[in-house]
Each structure stands twice: as structure tokens, then as C-alpha cells.
């Protein structure tokens, strides 16, 4: 039993909040992570969102977990934009050096990744520089052309990110609605309890009283 200062009454709490909040999640398939993603990071994001919930009812927790997944997808798609650019750069480089290059596009892609990160071996660096020279390109030229080539797919990723934002708005509105509903119910319970406590004998029972 908790004592409510505002109404001056005791309120019954049937179940601890922690137990209630987790009861809905096992019935929904859990979000899956990619092999290179950190589960600890995902869970810490979820916990920080849950800690902001005023009233962690099972449904609200289920919706917050979907919201956390949306944030995770936004992160994935943002990485994808950079990967698309990288893919297009590798394609252009391969095209520039296709008449002499012995290795395939995949090897070139790895070499380019190392080159851009500054960890390329001498062979890889030579391969990239030779391809750039062969195509009469600088690295910034290549990036600009790759952006132009990958624009269609980058736009698609932007759409996907935008969709996740819209989904988050829907989820947020649903969570607000649950919160409002539970507050309203609690307030009505408290007001009813206050009325009953003020009129212990006949007060709140006037509806049941016999008409005079």
C-alpha cells in the first residue's frame, strides 16, 4: 500500500512495476541483431528509454522496445548510406582499370576500404592509385561521381530512414495515449476513494440510497 499525499489516502499496488513491465515482451519476437552489432549497446538504449517512462505498463514497454528498434534501424541505414557510396566508388574504380586489373571488384573494394581508412598495404595502395591514374581521377572526383551514381539508392535509404521516423511518431503518440489513459483511470480511482473516505456512512452511497 502506498500513501498518496494529494488525496490523503492509501493506494493499492498489486504488482511490482519491474515485473509488470517485462510481462508482454516474451510474446513478441525479439529484435534480431546483425553479427557485428553489440547487444549491450542495444539493451542500454532500451533501458535508457524505459527509464523515461512514467508509467511502465506492459503495453508501453512493448511499444518502447519497438521504438528502440526504430532507432537501431536508423543507425543501420545511416551506415548503409556510406556503404553505398563506397560500393559505387569501387565500381567506378574497377571500370576505370578493368582493361588491366587482374583482381575482381571485391578485392578492389577491400583495398579501397583499407586505403580510405589509411591502413592499406603497399600493394593495395598501388592498386588504388594506379586505378585512379588510369581513370584520370582524384579521390574527391571519384567520390563526387560515386555519389551521382549511387544517388538513386541513397534516396531509397533516406526514404527508409524517413519511414522509421514516421513509425517513431506513431509509437510515441500511442505511448502518450496509454500514459494519459492510465493517469485518467488512476485519477478517477483516487477521486472516488477520496469521496468514499469523506462520507464513510452514507456519502458516496447516495446513488444506492432509497428515494425519499
Amino acid at each position, binding site marked *: 500500500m502506498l500513501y498518496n499525499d494529494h488525496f490523503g489516502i492509501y493506494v493499492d499496488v498489486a504488482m511490482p512495476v519491474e515485473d509488470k513491465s517485462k*510481462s*508482454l515482451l516474451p*510474446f*513478441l*519476437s525479439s*529484435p*534480431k541483431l*546483425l553479427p557485428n552489432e553489440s547487444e549491450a549497446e542495444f539493451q542500454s538504449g532500451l533501458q535508457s528509454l524505459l527509464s523515461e517512462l512514467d508509467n511502465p*505498463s*506492459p*503495453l508501453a514497454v*512493448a*511499444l518502447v522496445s*519497438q521504438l528502440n*528498434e526504430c532507432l537501431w534501424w536508423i543507425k*543501420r541505414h545511416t551506415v*548503409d548510406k556510406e*556503404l*553505398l557510396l563506397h*560500393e559505387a566508388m*569501387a*565500381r567506378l574504380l*574497377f571500370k576505370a582499370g*578493368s582493361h588491366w586489373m587482374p583482381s*575482381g*571488384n*571485391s578485392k578492389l*573494394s577491400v583495398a579501397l576500404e583499407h586505403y580510405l581508412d589509411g591502413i592499406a598495404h603497399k600493394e593495395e595502395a598501388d592498386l588504388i592509385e594506379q586505378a585512379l591514374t588510369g581513370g584520370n581521377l582524384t579521390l574527391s572526383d571519384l567520390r563526387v561521381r560515386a555519389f551521382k551514381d*549511387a544517388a538513386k*539508392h541513397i534516396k*531509397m*535509404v533516406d*526514404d*527508409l530512414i524517413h*519511414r522509421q521516423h*514516421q*513509425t517513431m511518431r*506513431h*509509437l510515441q*503518440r*500511442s505511448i502518450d*495515449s*496509454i500514459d494519459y*489513459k*492510465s493517469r485518467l*483511470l488512476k485519477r478517477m480511482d483516487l477521486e472516488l476513494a477520496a469521496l468514499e473516505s469523506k462520507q464513510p456512512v452514507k456519502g458516496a452511497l447516495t446513488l444506492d440510497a432509497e428515494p425519499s
Partner: protein
Amino acid sequence: MTPNHPRNLTNRHNALKSTGPRSVAGKQASSQNSRKHGLNSAPDFESSLEYRALVDLIAEEGFSAFACADIAAGLLNYRRVMDAYYDTYTSPEPVDEFLRDANVKASSPIFRELLSPSGSEPQDVREMAAFFASMQRQERRKGGPVSRRTTDTHKLIRYQRNGIARLSRAVRQG
């Protein structure tokens, strides 16, 4: 050609010999051959255990019976969409590296060599090289793995939009 043309009759007769799936299980399996994500099929949540458990749990929060049913179905439907989204994202169509990276100009002598025992004409070799080039163009147009998964995932946007709208409406009207 009339329906009773001898060639049509022969075709029909030969079709009877075709080896399609015959068992119930085989037919069921082959009916899923062209299935991509399964989001167009109507789901049957009501008979699942998860649905009943969800309805009971949501009812504890003071929602009406109708609202509980709507919210539970909405939640399961949204999860179904997001699972398909994940599956599509993680398993894009594989890249045929050989076809993508092959040198088409160098392929003509190879085709000539392959076709020479059958006494082929230069026209045949040209046609085969052109066909190979068109396949390569198609393969290159699809892009690398990231482009492919982006294109595939992009097709699921409308299912996600409908799924979340259904869930949100159920919760707010409950």
C-alpha cells in the same frame, strides 16, 4: 492454330506425363516457391497462443475486449512486418561476381571456340556475346549487396506504414 490441332493435342498428352509434385506435402511446398516475404497473405493470429496471452495481458490494463483484440493483432502484425523487414535486409539476392566482373570483349573468342565443333556461324557467336553482355548489364544494374538489400527493403515500406498505422489506431481508440 485450332484447339484440336494435332500439335496442341500432342502437347496436352505430353503435359500429362509432366513430373510435378503429387503428394500433398509436395504441393504445399511448391505453392510457396514464388513466396517472397508472405506479407500479402492474411495472417491468422486469433488461433495462436501468443495472441491469447497478449489479449489477457492487455486486458489487465483496463482496455475493452474489442480493443485488446485489436491491439494484440496490431502488435503481432507489426512484429511480423518487422521480422520480414529484417529477413529481407539480411538476405539480399547474391551477387554473381563472375558475370559482373567478366570481360565481355574477351568472351567472343571463347564462344567461338565453344561453338566451333557444331559448325556455328559468326552470327551465332555475336548473338551469344550480345546475350552475355545483356545479362552482365542486368547484373551490374542491380549493384552490390548494399544496393540490393536497399532496393528489396524499400519495397516493404508500405507494409511497415500500414502495420504501424493499424497498431497506433488500435491503441489510441482503445
